[in-house]
Structures are given as structure tokens and as C-alpha cells.
């Protein structure tokens, strides 16, 4: 595949400004850039969802004009989307069937099973998408793409919801595919992955081609600098001694049946968090995180009032507004539709969680527009939310900027407790670093923070303590400097740290070997 001089404009915005890219068979090529740099626009043109305004695409040596995705698939171009293009009401099998040409539809269920077993992506073909977690949905996307047997696979952030072990398995798949002379265009924010996996990288910034390089010759800092245009700050975290600090939140024997029949039940979850502590709860998507967030936030009140005690107040049965009034704040995983409403202006979005009559957003029940405007200005400034003009609608922000806004809105309330789910999912390096720094700063000013995350980099950057949730069970809580990434990874995979030693040792050795190879490659 070769792209030359590709231009795409949306109104006055030039999303792609003369982009060149060539892909060779058997190559894993990284496409790097911040959110809004034009990566998604670019790959949509390769996949036929958008048409370039200028420039030329050639496929296997011949010039092509890719009119629609069906044509792209026919040519042998497959795509794994970042924003899932799945049908919620349909089953896994039906979702996959829709993307395949009619002739390939035979024995589909069997082929789904074979492919998902071969590539270590377990799937139940009869499950309905609406009941699946984010991670499982991504697996459906990947299997769907692989079943089309494409020559070029475009992957938009495929590992963002996988555990390190799952990601390792995916890398083996990708390497296998590359060895079968397929090309892979790999979009990721995770520079370590790119360095490990990719032979070449193309870097975009603000719609322009910045450079093409060999990521193995660069280090994470130089790559990030090229993406952002300036250096990305490391998160500064001073370790703190939490011995004898008063507990802010105590969870004891929390049990919760899932709302959806394929959700995960919480079984006997117990932990406590000290004031000013950051507790990170690691785990693979779909292991009860959604239920845990629901129980902690009060979106799903639990019947046992005493199973959650917040600052001495048993609150298990209370709803989210009551908990907010008592000084808790929550940032859910889905920013759009759950954390913020796309069609509302940012200032109005503030009201969604600032619903205490005394917090200054209303006067005798009437919305105080001036106060909201001031708040909106303060939040967007403190969290560096970049937007076209002040007080845009939430839907007009990119994922990273919206996440910064939602975080800023909650931080601004100066909560005693902040529960955040996947704070930097799908957020670019610059924004992620800012959000993490803000979390650390907030905790050092006395706020207790619980972060539900599956990003080990993030956890090791910000956590004071870490626990792992697996199939609805919670592990012990470990101080962050007493565990390794590998151990957390094993816990995430449902293994016991004191489990059968040979498995653990073998796994550990394997991942250590891989780490060393990566370092050698550097």
C-alpha cells in the first residue's frame, strides 16, 4: 500500500495535510500522533470510510480509489476500530457475519472458535454484544478482522484494553501475521509497544507528517517529543508513609449480583483506603470493575448498608447524589454519555455532578450562568482543555480533552474521595501525563483516590498501593514498591502469587526474557 500527498479537509480544518506513507508486505508499521493529529482520518481513507480530497492511493502497485469499506475488504484491507463498530443488539456471530462476504459465511461458528483459540482471544459466538465488556468487544473486533484474511490490517489502539499478557499474545499474533507477509498498520499511544513491535514509524502532528523513523533507534522520550512537539513531563510522585493514617473508605464483605446476566458478580470484596492514598485496582476488563464502580459510586446501591463505610458513614444503600453531598466524586469509564453529555455545553455539563444546592452553581434553584462560566474557565485552564472556542459542546472535544475536562470538574469540587475508572483510556501521552500528575497532586493534598485501571504503566506511575480484581474477587492490597509488574500481571490473569511455582517461574522467565530482548533491541 502506498499513499502519496493525501489531503483531507473538514470545512476550515485540514485534518490531513499532504501525508505520505508506504507499507511493505511483512512489515509492522506504527502510526503515531496525539489525539486529533489526524491518524483516524488518515486510516479511514485507507479503509474507504472517507475519501481523500487530494492525493493518490496505490495498492499492490496499481492506483486505486477505495469507494467504500466493502471495497477495501474485497481488496484485502481489514480494520480493527478504536471506537467499536459493533452492533449491540446482535450476537458476536452476527456481528462477524455482517463484515464477511457471503461466500465466507460457511461454518462461521466453527471458524470463529478456531481463530479465537489460535490467537488466544476467547469468544462466545452466541453472546450478545450489549452484555460484553470493553475488552471482550475489542476481541470481537480483532477476530472479525482476522476472519476476513486481509493482506493489510489496520489496528487502531488494539492493546488499550488488554492485559500485558494478553498484549504479549496479540504481539505474537501480529508477528505471526507479519511473517505470513501481511502488512500491519499499528496505531498506538504506547511507545514501548511500538518500539518492541514495529520496524518503522510515521509520526503525525496537527495533520502534518512530522517524520518517519525507525522506532527501535529512538527512545520513548524522543518519540513522545516528536508526537507532542515538546517534551512530555514525567509524573512526579513522592512516596508517602501511610502507616497509622486514618482510613477514609472501608469496604467489608461487599457482594453484588451483576445487573446484566453476563456481568460479573462481586464476591466478598474487602479493602480499605487511607486518607490521601492512591489505591489502584488493576484487572482485565470485564472482571467486575463495572460492578465495583457501580457499588462505590452508588449507581448500584447495595443492600448491606455497612459493606461500604465512607468517613465513618455506612453508605452502601445510598445513591450517588447523597454520596456526592458527603464529599465523594466519581469519574466513570465512558466519558461520552456517562461522564458528560455530548450535546450539552461544558458549563452545563458541570451541573451534572455539581448538584449540591450550596455549591454555588445555583441561586435559589436558578442556574447561575456567570458562576458556571467562571467554573468552566477555571477548569479548562487548570486542566489545559483545548477547544475551538470557550464553552464548546462536550461532543466537540477530542477524547483526551473531554477526559481532562471531566477530571477537572471532579477535582475542582475538592472531594474527600475520588473514584476514577480508566482515567487515561484512549488518551494521548501529553494528556495522560497531565491527568496522572493531577491525581498525584490531589492525593498529596489529602484526597483519597481509587483508580480502576488496566494500564500497568499508569498504575506504577501513580499508585501508593495496588490490588487486583479478577472474576469479581479482590486480591490483597500490596504497597506498590513491594510488587513487580509481572506479579500484578499474573494476578490480573487470575493466578495466585503463591500458586504452583513452576507455572509462575516459567511465566516470569518468559516475560523477563522478552523484556531483556526489548532492552537489547533498544
Amino acid at each position, binding site marked *: 500500500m502506498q499513499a502519496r500527498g493525501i489531503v483531507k479537509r473538514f470545512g476550515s480544518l485540514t485534518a490531513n495535510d499532504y501525508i505520505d506513507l508506504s507499507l511493505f508486505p511483512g512489515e509492522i508499521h506504527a502510526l503515531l500522533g496525539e489525539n486529533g493529529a489526524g491518524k483516524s482520518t488518515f486510516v479511514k481513507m485507507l479503509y474507504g470510510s*472517507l475519501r481523500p480530497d487530494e492525493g493518490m492511493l496505490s495498492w499492490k502497485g496499481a492506483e486505486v480509489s477505495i469507494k467504500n*469499506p466493502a471495497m477495501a475488504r474485497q481488496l484485502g484491507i481489514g480494520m480493527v476500530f478504536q471506537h467499536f*463498530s459493533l*452492533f449491540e*443488539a446482535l450476537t458476536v456471530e452476527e456481528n462477524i457475519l455482517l463484515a464477511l462476504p457471503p461466500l465466507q459465511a460457511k461454518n462461521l461458528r466453527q471458524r470463529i472458535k478456531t481463530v479465537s483459540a489460535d490467537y488466544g482471544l476467547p469468544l462466545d459466538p452466541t453472546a450478545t454484544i450489549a452484555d460484553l465488556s470493553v475488552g471482550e468487544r475489542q476481541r470481537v473486533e480483532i477476530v472479525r478482522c482476522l476472519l476476513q484474511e486481509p493482506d493489510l490490517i489496520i489496528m487502531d489502539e488494539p492493546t488499550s484494553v488488554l492485559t500485558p499478557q494478553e498484549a504479549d499474545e496479540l504481539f505474537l499474533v501480529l508477528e505471526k501475521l507479519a511473517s505470513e507477509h501481511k502488512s500491519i498498520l499499528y496505531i498506538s499511544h504506547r511507545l514501548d509497544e511500538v518500539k518492541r513491535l514495529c520496524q518503522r514509524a510515521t509520526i503525525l502532528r496537527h495533520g502534518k507528517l512530522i517524520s518517519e523513523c525507525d522506532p527501535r533507534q529512538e527512545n520513548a522520550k524522543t518519540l513522545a517529543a516528536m508526537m507532542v512537539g515538546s517534551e512530555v513531563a514525567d509524573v512526579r510522585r513522592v512516596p508517602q508513609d501511610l502507616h497509622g493514617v486514618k482510613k477514609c473508605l472501608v469496604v467489608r464483605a461487599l457482594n453484588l449480583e451483576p445487573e446484566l446476566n453476563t456481568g460479573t458478580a462481586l464476591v466478598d470484596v474487602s479493602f480499605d483506603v487511607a486518607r490521601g492514598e492512591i489505591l489502584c485496582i488493576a484487572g482485565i476488563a470485564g472482571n467486575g470493575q463495572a460492578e465495583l464502580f457501580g457499588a462505590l459510586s452508588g449507581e448500584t446501591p447495595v443492600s448491606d448498608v455497612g459493606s461500604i463505610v465512607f468517613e465513618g458513614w455506612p453508605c452502601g444503600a445510598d445513591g450517588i447524589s447523597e454520596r456526592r453531598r458527603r464529599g465523594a466524586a466519581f469519574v466513570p469509564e465512558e466519558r461520552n454519555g456517562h461522564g458528560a453529555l455530548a450535546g450539552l455545553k461544558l458549563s452545563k455539563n458541570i451541573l451534572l455532578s455539581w448538584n449540591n444546592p450550596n455549591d454555588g452553581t445555583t441561586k435559589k434553584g436558578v442556574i447561575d450562568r456567570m458562576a458556571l462560566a467562571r467554573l468552566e474557565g477555571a477548569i479548562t485552564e487548570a486542566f489545559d482543555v483545548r477547544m475551538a472556542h470557550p464553552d464548546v459542546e462536550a461532543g466537540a472535544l477530542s477524547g483526551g480533552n473531554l477526559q481532562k475536562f471531566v477530571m477537572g470538574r471532579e477535582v475542582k469540587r475538592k472531594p474527600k474521595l475520588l473514584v476514577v475508572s480508566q482515567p487515561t483510556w484512549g488518551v494521548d501521552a501529553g494528556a495522560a501525563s497531565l491527568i496522572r500528575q493531577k491525581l498525584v497532586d490531589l492525593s498529596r493534598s489529602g484526597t483519597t483516590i481509587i483508580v480502576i485501571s488496566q494500564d500497568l504503566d499508569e498504575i506504577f506511575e501513580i499508585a501508593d498501593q495496588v490490588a487486583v480484581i479478577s472474576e469479581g474477587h479482590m486480591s490483597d492490597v500490596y504497597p506498590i514498591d513491594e510488587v513487580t509488574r509481572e506479579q500484578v500481571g499474573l494476578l490480573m490473569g487470575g493466578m495466585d502469587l503463591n500458586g504452583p511455582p513452576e507455572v509462575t517461574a516459567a511465566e516470569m522467565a518468559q516475560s523477563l526474557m522478552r523484556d531483556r530482548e526489548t532492552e537489547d533491541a533498544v
Partner: protein
Amino acid sequence: MEIYEAIILTIITAATPLLLAACGELVAERAGILNLGVEGMMIMGAVGAFAVAFSTGSPYLGIAAGIGAGALASLPFAFLTISMVTNQVATGLALTILGLGLSGMIGDAYIGQPGVKLQPINIQGLSDLPYVGRILFSQDVIVYASIVLLVLVWIFLFKTRAGLSLRAVGDSHSSAHALGVSVRKVRYMAVIFGGACAGLAGAYLSLVYTPQWTEGMTAGRGWIAVVLVVFATWMPGRLLAGAYLFGAVLILQLHAQAAGVNIPSQFLSSLPYLATIIVLVLISRNRTLVKKNSPACLGKPFVPDV
């Protein structure tokens, strides 16, 4: 004729137009288009069928005309909501008002004229069977067609690839578009199919139910059909049960009034609508049922990005 036979036969007659119109609406809604113009398309079918049957003397040409008139009536709705992306609710209401008015104008010449009745098909031997003969084997072609149509719709929606595409369009038009499904084409077809079904339902009213033309003769049946689709949670099998249940309630309250039951007749007349509300409440309580089956993009405008 035994009384039970009479009751069952009238229930079938009452249920058939509901079933037909709801069947078409179900397909349109499964594709994501909420067409509140069923009443208007139905009455256009009724007047079209009556006019053609009256002038040609053939009820079968009348049926064809009813189907055609319903489909034709759906075209402006399809163009406005799908191509011009107008609001589906408002456009559907406009279609109902337009249909009621236009049919009155067209039908003015036919008021009081004797209609052409579509005769039942008698099957030698079977029709004379005791108990079930007249009920099962002595119906007209539209009654049989309504059942066959429903089965075909079920097979289409759940057993064919084209039906899967249609459901996909109703569930997430942007994902369907991303996969290369032609969202607008699918929706045009679904809306026109819905119009044809409503037209056939109208033809049944003016050729069988009361073989004559009176203004506003659909009398709200189009609206009941819209409700039936929700009642059935967009599942064809439940639609069959629902249509016959509503038909039964419509007829039984008439029989109850005739038998002089000591209940105010206004209450009996409102029974079908009360039943609608109660059932809707019961269905809405089951969140997973509704969430699983209701087309997520129902009523939402679709504008493909360039």
C-alpha cells in the same frame, strides 16, 4: 353457526388488518425508522382498493391497488425522513393527516356505493369439517396472506443475511455505514414495505371488514398497529399473539355490550386501550427485554460523514 364460531371468525377479521399493518411497521422500525403515518397509509390503501375494485369489479385488482396506494403514500415520508433527514415523528404525523384528508377527497364519489366483497376461499371437504372447518379453511386470501407474510418476515429478519443487515442498520447506522451497508437504501426498502403492508391492511378493511367506503374508516387501527410493535418488543411471533389478543378484546367488548353485561359501555369500549397501557407498563418493567430488542437507532437521524 355456533356462537363460538361467530366470535372466533370476527376476531380473525378484526385481527388481520392490525397484524398486517403492524408487520410492516415492525420491519420499518427494525431498520430504525419510526413511521407514525401508518393510519394515513392504511386509509390510502382502503380508498385505493375500494375505488379500483368498484370500477373493475375485481377485488383482487383492488388488493393490488391497496398495496400500491399504501406504498405510494410512504414514498414522500421516506424521501423526507431518509434523504432530507426531517424529524420522523413530525413527518409521520403529517403523513397521517395527509392520508386522512386525501382519502376523504378521493373517496367522496364512493360514499354510499355498494362495495365489492372479497369472497372466502372454500376448500372442498376441509371447509365442512366440524368445529374447525369454517374457522381454518374458509377464510379469504388476505387472512392466509397475513400469516404467511408474518412467517416470511420472521425468516427474513432472523434467518437471512439481508435481514441481518436490516437489523444492523436499525441498531447502529453509523457502524453499518462503516461496514459498507447502504443505510439509506435499506431504510427506503423497509419504509416502502411498511407502506405496502399498511395499504394491504386498508384494502382488507374496505373489501372484507365492511365492503364499502366511509371517511375515516380505519378508526385508529393504524395507531393500534404502531402500539402493537412495541407490545411485541419488535418480535414477529409476539406480534401475532398481540394482534389476535387485541382483535379478541375489540370483539369481546362488542359481544359483551350486545349481551347487555352490566358494565358501562364506555368502559368496555376503552378496554383495548387500557389493555395497551397495562401491557406497555409490564413490558417496560423488563429492562433487558426492551434493551435487547428495541432498535437502538429508532427515530434517530442518519447523516453519513463524507
